[in-house]
């Protein structure tokens, strides 16, 4: 007999055997019912155990997957108080749940501007679909691009998902830059051809005029005599009236225009020089010497007063490259950096300090890495993004064409199959990072 039935019978009849005889069928029915109930419950228990085992297994599988997400997850209430969080794999800072519970999410460095962030939370809390935000956060003095998604979950709980998109943004910029380069290249080639002929006409004829207004050529004397005039008179007149200077001006301007067209054509002209295996340490040092020894009246910086620190890795492999073109790139970067530092330190609000270049050479696998770092004014985000753009310049008009940096970019990426990036923080300096394949990839 089922123990529960026994207990009931004892309670009513003082003993489990003392029930009236006519009840025995009924008692048996009740006993069966109890047993069946037990069986059913056991089956339910068993299936529940199986289900929960499966659930736990799935749960731990999900956890493993969850752990590998690059994104960071933060659960907050509509006021921005952190309820829970889970740091991402790919993240710049590690979120530790216990340390952050109870703090405000806008206080996290990766939230960027607290006001903008707070406004986004409000918007998300009020809508059903949530919202998202792209912004820049300053973490440990470096700028990072972030994308935050705000998802309302249940009443008073929102999920904020942070994604560091600095790499993605950089790739997008490279793509845009390449497209710009390509379009400039196409324009440049087409235009150059059209311009070269009229330029040749201007330069050629002006030169001839100059020569024919002088007294060096016998033919000039002969023709003058034939016209019945004294050549020396013509020469004196030309000089007095400034004709020679004007012609020189035309010739000089024509040459400048030709140089600009030629410079622009760097984008489309195929390289003819050979690649040679060169020691980049020597090349870089040679370029620094060149920059030091050069004296240019137009320069308002003195390269000799800039300290140069070298961090060259030992055992650097020789790199297949076009020495003169690479020198052009190094020289361009050093010149720009020197100018920037000199101008920066001449400002009254900037503390007196030594201008400094740090040059680094290293290699990883089949790439070498060249870093040229200065401690100048650095660049703001917009300048940094546009620095390789053709004709973009922060200097005033007359200080160059703004092509130097874009030509350098082209030399590194197109001629050498390498990469070129810039890192910069305002007031903390700028670092140009070039990477070149050791075995070269001539175009």
């Amino acid at each position, binding site marked *: 007999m089922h123990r529960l039935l026994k207990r009931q019978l004892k309670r009513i009849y003082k003993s489990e055997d003392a029930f009236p005889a006519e009840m025995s069928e009924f008692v048996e029915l009740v006993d069966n019912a109890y047993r069946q109930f037990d069986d059913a419950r056991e089956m339910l228990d068993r299936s529940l155990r199986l289900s929960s085992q499966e659930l736990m297994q799935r749960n731990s599988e999900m956890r493993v997957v969850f752990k590998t997400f690059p994104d960071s997850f933060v659960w907050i209430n509509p006021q921005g108080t952190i309820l829970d969080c889970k740091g991402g794999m790919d993240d710049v800072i590690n979120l530790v749940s216990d340390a952050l519970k109870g703090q405000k999410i806008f206080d996290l460095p990766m939230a960027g501007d607290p006001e903008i962030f707070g406004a986004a939370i409000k918007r998300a809390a009020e809508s059903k679909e949530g919202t998202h935000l792209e912004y820049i956060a300053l973490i440990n003095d470096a700028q990072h691009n972030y994308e935050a998604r705000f998802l309302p979950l249940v009443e008073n709980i929102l999920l904020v998902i942070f994604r560091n998109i600095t790499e993605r943004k950089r790739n997008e910029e490279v793509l845009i830059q390449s497209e710009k380069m390509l379009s400039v290249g196409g324009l440049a080639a087409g235009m*150059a051809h059209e311009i*070269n002929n009229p330029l*040749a*006409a201007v*330069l*050629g004829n002006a030169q*001839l005029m100059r020569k024919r207004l002088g007294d060096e050529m016998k033919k000039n004397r002969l023709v003058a005599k034939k016209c019945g005039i004294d050549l020396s008179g013509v020469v004196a007149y030309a000089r007095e009236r400034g004709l020679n200077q004007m012609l020189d001006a035309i010739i000089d301007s024509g040459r400048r225009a030709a140089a600009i067209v030629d410079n622009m054509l760097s984008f489309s*002209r195929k390289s003819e020089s050979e690649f040679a295996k060169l020691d980049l340490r020597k090349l870089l040092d040679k370029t620094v010497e060149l920059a030091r020894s050069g004296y240019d009246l137009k320069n308002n910086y003195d390269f000799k007063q800039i300290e140069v620190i070298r961090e060259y890795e030992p055992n650097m492999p020789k790199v297949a490259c076009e020495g003169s073109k690479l020198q052009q790139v190094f020289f361009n970067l050093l010149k720009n950096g020197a100018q920037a530092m000199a101008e920066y330190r001449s400002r009254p609000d900037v503390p007196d300090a030594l201008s400094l270049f740090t040059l680094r050479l290293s290699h990883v696998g089949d790439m070498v890495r060249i870093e040229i770092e200065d401690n100048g004014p650095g660049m703001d985000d917009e300048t940094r993004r546009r620095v390789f753009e053709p004709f973009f310049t922060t200097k005033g008009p007359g200080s160059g064409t703004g092509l130097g940096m874009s030509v350098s970019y082209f030399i590194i990426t197109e001629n050498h199959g390498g990469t070129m990036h810039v890192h910069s923080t305002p007031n903390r300096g700028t670092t140009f990072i070039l990477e070149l394949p050791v075995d070269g990839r001539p175009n």
Partner: protein
Amino acid sequence: MTSQPPVRVLIVDDEPFVVMSVMAILEDNDIAAEAVDSGEEALELVGSSEYDIVLVDLRLPSMQGDELIVRLHELRPNMKFAIHTGSTWFEPTDDLKKAGIKREHLLYKPVVDLVEIVRVVLDLAGRSGE
């Protein structure tokens, strides 16, 4: 003063102002120069007159400069050629190389010092001493 006959140059270029200055600099250096503005005319002229050097622009109204050079070379195997082009870059084909075109015979417009044209012409004519 040389007793050799002047070098004779034929200029093939359809840019009249460029032709003006090239002819003038050649004349000033006692080089005889004539000019035509198409490949067809050049072929005609070469058929009936003698030239030492032909200075060809690649872009011409109908027959292009590179084809012209090959055909002129067939006509007169001893004639020499130079190219004066507004193109930004030019890689001589094998046919052109067979006609004698080398890198140093390529002049890119604008030639910043016209004397360079004279030098190339005299070089080709084997008269670099002048």
